[in-house]
């Protein structure tokens, strides 16, 4: 999937992946896509909750070898 910016939140725990995501999205324009990589298992549900409450669109959420990958489209 194409993306405009990548955020590596590996090794960070709650609430840092969400706070960093929010900050990274602020640097993007509407419709641009942010890729986030995280290792916190809680981030799977948290990213969904973040998207739902902020109106940004979670395009995909996948897991590969202990890492979680998210693509978030800015509102």
């Amino acid at each position, binding site marked *: 999937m194409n993306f405009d910016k990548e955020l590596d939140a590996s090794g960070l725990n*709650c609430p840092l992946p969400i706070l960093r995501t929010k900050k990274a999205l602020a640097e993007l324009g509407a419709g641009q896509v942010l890729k986030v990589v995280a290792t916190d298992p809680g981030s799977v549900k948290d990213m969904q909750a973040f998207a739902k409450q*902020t109106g940004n669109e979670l395009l995909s959420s996948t897991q590969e070898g202990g890492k979680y990958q998210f693509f978030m489209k800015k509102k």
Partner: protein
Amino acid sequence: MKKLAIIATKGTLDWAYPPYILASTAAALGYEVQIFFTFYGLQLVRKDTSCLKVSPLGNPGMPMKMPFGPKWFRDINWNIPNIIQANIPGFETLATALMKQTIANNGVATIADLRDMCQEAEVKFLACQMTVELFGFEHSDFVDGIDYVGAASFFEFAGESDICLYI
């Protein structure tokens, strides 16, 4: 915009986390947030966060595990009786050092970092002027950007809030 009002009343390292985690996360979700720091909660806004310590004494819910060494060693839960904890000088300092190491090992933010993130996200800090005087603090002991107010000012915001937490 939804509003979150928090009253922070605890002044230990472990209890410093809930208000700052919830406030920073709510701000990231688009909430307007205020934290009212009162009584021991004032410790959470001191410039020097090294005053925050954790006490395992009388806290049976706190696992006592070592943040270093081989896995079998780290898995041991050290059940140290209260009467021994209470009589070892520097026990809280030791427990606090171990807790800080555990926090760093787990990729959990420091209190100073979380607090900075709250302030960057425009979480508003209010401090209880009465307890500032009661405990003999000076405004210069605390981080910048705090409003020193009384209970009535807290209610002005809390009365309109969607969520109000006492921590």
